[in-house]
């Protein structure tokens, strides 16, 4: 983005404050253009012919420094790149790193289909949603175009996920393209040796392509410049992912350099970057070591500028941390992730149902809520306002106190004596030290629940309903 203040964007807008975009004023809209929560096309008046010039100028100024590249089609289309800043707190990072897991054309058909389905269906609940992975990379290990085409065809038939076609042989890539061309696959890869033939395919089929120049940034830029000159900017850069030792340090340096140059305005190299943590498998024989090291490399390059990556291990102990570190890096750091404080009814609670206390940190709240709901426990769940801090830290830092709990319950007009038959509050195990204080403050019976809400069902069986005192 070439501008960073709403005022600069405002100058190009119609300044009619018409409200069609949903904002009260053009200035408010301009602020959202800068933080990228609105698109310029949300402003209907500027689409009018008489504003054409201003529209085009502003559109160019707002364009992200790193180009955005699309892979796949329809609902599953994956966008990569599109970033403007080196640090997420400056704006946020856009377009999560896309994780592609590999299959090969030497695999047994049954195994291939099974693996593709497993990758496609893998999911992990997190903050009200499921985290999933994104793509299938088909590697040609046979060297045979026909075999490759057959494998790609099988993948296309099995899943809607976007695809990466991997080979350095243009004939193999062409065979794969023929059976997947309507899916807008990413070609991997053009190199200094095959670039002419691969460029022909890229231009003929109009698909995105990865440029691969291991540890040679001059060559990487040379390829990018040549492809752009030939008429395509749907480019992804792979500077090579070396999995160990000083080579890995060099890889790290290359990623930093390429992204920095792109953000600094070197258009010739301002494209999304690909990492291939799968190379960890070339350095480790033992699958656990390889998976661990692959996850470590994937984490480094999810944090430092990898926009797309190709991975091999589908062990949950590799995939779960990968999914979470990506979510960590791509969550907008400018917004606290909270739910509104107050009472939530889970299921259909009655006066005999328990009253459970948690915090308004979205992660805590959704975890507790889903654990209770999926076990069909009816209850009143209180999200106490802890400024969006989790239980343990909020107890330590004084954001979760007996007074806060008392106030939280009373503010909603809920009366423990009248509205429940048991006058009991269940506090989280991690807040056990508040038990006495909460008893004093509320005059209610206070029970200490389990430290992890996953254990609430077992705890309920043993402890609910509470014994009459």
């Amino acid at each position, binding site marked *: 983005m070439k501008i960073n203040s709403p005022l600069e964007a405002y100058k190009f807008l119609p300044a009619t404050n018409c409200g069609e975009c949903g904002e009260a004023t053009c200035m408010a809209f301009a602020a959202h253009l800068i933080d990228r929560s609105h698109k310029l096309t949300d402003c209907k008046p500027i689409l009018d012919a008489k504003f054409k010039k201003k529209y085009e100028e502003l559109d160019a100024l707002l364009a992200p420094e790193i180009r955005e590249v699309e892979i796949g089609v329809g609902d599953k289309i994956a966008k990569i790149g599109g970033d403007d800043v080196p640090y997420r707190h400056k704006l946020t990072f856009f377009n999560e790193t896309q994780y592609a897991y590999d299959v090969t054309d030497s695999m047994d058909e049954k195994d291939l289909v099974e693996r593709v389905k497993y990758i496609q269906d893998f999911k992990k609940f997190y903050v009200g949603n499921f985290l999933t992975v994104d793509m299938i990379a088909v590697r040609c290990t046979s060297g045979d175009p026909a075999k490759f085409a057959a494998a790609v065809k099988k993948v296309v038939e099995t899943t809607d996920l976007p695809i990466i076609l991997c080979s350095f042989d243009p004939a193999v890539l062409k065979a794969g393209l023929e059976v997947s061309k309507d899916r807008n696959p990413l070609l991997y890869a053009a190199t200094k040796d095959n670039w002419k033939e691969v460029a022909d395919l890229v231009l003929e089929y109009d698909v995105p392509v990865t440029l691969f120049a291991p540890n040679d940034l001059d060559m990487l830029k040379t390829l990018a410049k*040549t492809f752009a000159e*030939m008429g395509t900017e749907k480019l992804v850069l792979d500077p090579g992912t070396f999995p160990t030792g000083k080579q890995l340090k060099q890889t790290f340096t290359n990623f930093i*350099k390429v992204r920095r140059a792109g953000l600094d305005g070197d258009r010739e190299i301002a494209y999304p970057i690909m990492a291939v943590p799968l190379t960890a498998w070339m350095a480790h024989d033992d699958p656990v070591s390889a998976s661990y090291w692959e996850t470590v490399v994937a984490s480094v390059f999810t944090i430092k500028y990898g926009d797309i990556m190709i991975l091999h291990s589908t062990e949950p102990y590799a995939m779960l941390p990968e999914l979470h570190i990506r979510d960590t890096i791509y969550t907008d750091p400018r917004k606290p992730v909270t739910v509104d404080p107050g009472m939530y009814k889970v299921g259909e609670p009655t006066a005999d149902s328990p009253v459970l206390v948690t915090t308004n940190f979205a992660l805590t709240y959704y975890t507790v809520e889903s654990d209770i709901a999926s076990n069909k426990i009816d209850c009143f769940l209180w999200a106490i306002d802890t400024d969006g801090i989790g239980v343990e830290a909020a107890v330590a830092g004084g954001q979760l106190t007996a007074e806060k709990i008392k106030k939280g319950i009373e503010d909603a007009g809920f009366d423990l004596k009248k509205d429940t038959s048991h006058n009991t509050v269940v506090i989280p195990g991690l807040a056990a030290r508040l038990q006495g204080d909460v008893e004093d403050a509320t005059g209610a019976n206070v029970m200490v629940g389990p430290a992890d809400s996953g254990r609430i069902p077992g705890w309920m069986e043993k402890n609910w309903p509470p014994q009459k005192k």
Partner: protein
Amino acid sequence: MTKKMKLSQLSDMLQDLDVESLEGVTIEGDIELNISGGGGLNPALAYALGNEISQISLHMANIGRMLGFPAEQLFASAFGMAEAPQAGALPTSPKIQELLASKFEVSKVDNWKNPIQEVTLGATSGDGGTRKSTVTIGGENALPYYFDAEMPHRNYVTMDVFDMPIGMAKAVKGNYEDVINDPAEWAKKVVRDFNADMVTIHLISTDPLISDTPAKEAAKVVEDVLQAVDVPIVIGGSGNPEKDPEVLEKAAEVAEGERVLLASASLNLDYERIAKAAMDYGHNVLSWTQLEINAQKELNRKLMKQCNVPRDRIVMDPTTAALGYGLDYAYTNMERIRLAGLMGDDELTFPMSSGTTNAWGAREAWMVSSPLNQDSDWGPREYRGPIWEIVTGLALSLAGNDMFMMMHPTSVQVLKEITQTLYGSIESEEIDITNWVGAEV
């Protein structure tokens, strides 16, 4: 006499022939083209000639480029193309026969001018202590592992030891069952077997809600640990804000001259007492705040101005929230703190420590399986736990963290290996990845 021919004559000659391209046309020596009345040419011939001439000009432009002339700009301005051709212009784009050579260049960051403060932990006999070696952290002039400036010190790991048996994830506990009742043996084990650079002794039994161990008794444990190992140590209280000042004072006293790190001074307890204990007995102070950059500034300022703690005795702990449990805040908080320090905010130019062990609080690290039946299978927790601690620490190492408090031996080993790899001190066999696509893995 050279016979000359006008273009129009050529056109007339070829008028009735279906000419699509001219072959064997060579232009030698000085090029002099005098084309007039182009509109009167046979269109096919005009196209063919135009094509040849354009090709020539491209070749010439390439030569120009090799000589360093910005030919593109000339073309752009000559043809009124302000920007590169759009994808829509693709069919008319030139077919390129040679790679367009380009040099990659990038500048170093120019506003990281303020080095991070160096802090030394531990004291050898020469400095009035009994440690065999010391650990120095800080000193960075750039973000960790960045090419902008050499990183003077690697990351260090201090492993946790508790003064009483505590609840631990199964994968962690298995490593400590033999020493769980003996903090000194526990400390020995982490140094001898697990390669800990330092040891953190947590005096949690002093919490009035746990065992309320008197401060004096707790201090005895500190003496035992100092006897048992010769690496620098960190002394942690129980986290009880009323009791900790007293406990840390006593501990500081028995550890006099060892330059330990007292954990922690925070805004919600009497930090002055802790700072004073550190100054009286020659120790460092861990300045602990909760995920809030301004609170961190405030506490550091108070330690420096109000308690007269010298700059080289402060380490910050801006709080570690685990992977999937707020690491997004922890990561950004640390990154902002480190960047602010590098850019000259002298209330934030201190090295940082992370309670990476917090990762074991994440259910993904220890729970047998997901409590949610919609989740995919989580797989064996023996492998899940350590990687949770590793990725939590690794992320923070990239944000600028210098020192890690950790628990699991595998996590310690892998985190050390990756951070030292990025630091540049790990030699390993070179791997040829040029044909990774076809690799059998």
